[in-house]
């Protein structure tokens, strides 16, 4: 077990030169030697990850293994102690604004203002992302997530599933190239989950990349091209067959007996939409 002392390492290597190299290599996400701690608690160390364009990667792992942290580093919300993190060809530390323009994030909180309507929220973010032309784009996104009828309702009056849809709309509004989702299927009803799946499928088919974390192993396996498991601060990539056979899958199956009993349905039941 390697003992990494995060605060003794200095500036991250790579940067603009690596971005150029990555653009040439055509990687959507390139992470090398990532170290991230919260305070003194190291969460990720010496992590490497590479994701190509058009790939759908699902991150799995027990609670506290750093799935959310990794996503936050990729989205520039969190700043790593050291290591190189390139997303969509730009360095997350030195060219953070360029990364933010090309990344869409669906997190635990919706990043939405509850007292504003859906449309107002989208217009607000659209203006900050300098989306042009803004109004047609907002309408297009609203219809894509099926919320045109509710567009003038305040967000706090919507159900959790609807709020998630608005959050997804917000994430894709500025046409990012990489979509990062943190447990998006939580609390969604079947219809919403199906909508999300078809949206993500279109997304990857158009050559864009998705990285998603989830607790729902079956769903993750069904949707992903590649599965990565986070444990002990690092990643182990496995294809779906490997993961099915591994002992970890037995453990996670055992922890959700209702799923095993129902024959492994991929969808979680949430509250019915209103």
């Amino acid at each position, binding site marked *: *077990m390697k003992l990494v002392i995060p*605060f*003794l390492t*200095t500036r991250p290597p790579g940067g603009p030169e690596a971005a150029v190299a990555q653009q040439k290599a055509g990687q959507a996400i390139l992470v090398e030697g990532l170290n991230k*701690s*919260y*305070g*003194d608690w*190291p969460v990720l160390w010496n992590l490497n990850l590479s994701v190509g364009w058009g790939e759908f990667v699902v991150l799995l792992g027990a609670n506290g293994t750093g799935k959310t942290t990794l996503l936050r580093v990729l989205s520039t919300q969190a700043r790593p102690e050291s290591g190189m993190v390139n997303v969509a060809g730009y360095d997350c530390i030195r060219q953070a604004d360029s990364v933010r323009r090309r990344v869409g994030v669906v997190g635990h909180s919706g990043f939405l203002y509850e007292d504003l309507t859906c449309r107002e929220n989208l217009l607000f973010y659209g203006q900050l992302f300098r989306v042009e032309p803004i109004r047609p784009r907002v309408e297009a996104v609203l219809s894509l997530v099926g919320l045109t009828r509710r567009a003038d309702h305040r967000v706090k009056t919507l159900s959790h599933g609807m709020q998630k849809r608005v959050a997804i709309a917000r994430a894709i509004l500025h046409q990012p190239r990489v979509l990062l989702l943190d447990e998006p299927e939580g609390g969604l009803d079947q219809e919403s989950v199906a909508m999300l799946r078809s949206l993500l499928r279109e997304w990857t088919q158009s050559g864009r990349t998705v990285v998603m974390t989830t607790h729902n192993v079956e769903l993750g396996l069904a949707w992903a091209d590649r599965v990565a498991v986070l444990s002990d601060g690092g990643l182990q990539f496995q294809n779906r067959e490997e993961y099915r056979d591994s002992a970890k899958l037995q453990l996670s199956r055992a922890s959700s007996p209702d799923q095993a009993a129902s024959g492994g349905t991929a969808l979680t039941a949430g509250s019915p939409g209103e």
Partner: protein
Amino acid sequence: MATADPVRQPRLSLTNLLVVLGAALMLADVYLIFMVAPTDSVLGDVQRIFYFHVPMAIMSFLAFFVVFVASILYLARRDQQWDRLAHAAAETGVVYVTLALLTGIIWARPVWGTWWQWEPRLTTTLILWLIYVACLMIRAYAPNPTQGARYAAVVGIVGFVDVPIVYYSVQWWRSIHPSAVVGPLAEAGALEPVMQGILLFSCLTFLVLYLYLVVERTALRGLEDQVRLLKFSMRRTGR
């Protein structure tokens, strides 16, 4: 003496030197203050407190400058060592400014008849004390030490820029609403040469003491960080 102890910091010799020097200076200083310095014709023996109060007050302002510089360097370079220095300088500084205030109060009572007067330099010292306290509180109340370090650095920078403005505003305010008294710090100018000499010596003593405390505390902080990290790593591998 064991030389291969990995936990000992490499600056042992500097710390030792400062301790010895500081102790020697302090002994000499105390002797000078109580034996050599002439008794003040107006105030009597109580005036001797002044030789403690003034250096400590000056040192507390200097300490804040150290906090300021270390804070800027920490935010710019992200090197933990600067944070340790800022933390140590702030902690030592708050001790100094507290003592400066206390000696000011002790001086005030027999001389003015009250415990406190809102004269410019004392008031500015009080504000400095509050800013120091805020700096240390923010470390304690922050969600984790790294964020605490950053917030404390921001407070240190903003606070240091503000202190001169506070001083001038209080001084102007006092010139409009004058009180009858002038504070101990203000009297540092009009002194006999002997007294000035002892005052300077006192300043030197407290400077060396300050340096010693900061160096020691910075190293101690480094040890604390290492222990915390080891604990967490042990917990991780123990799983």
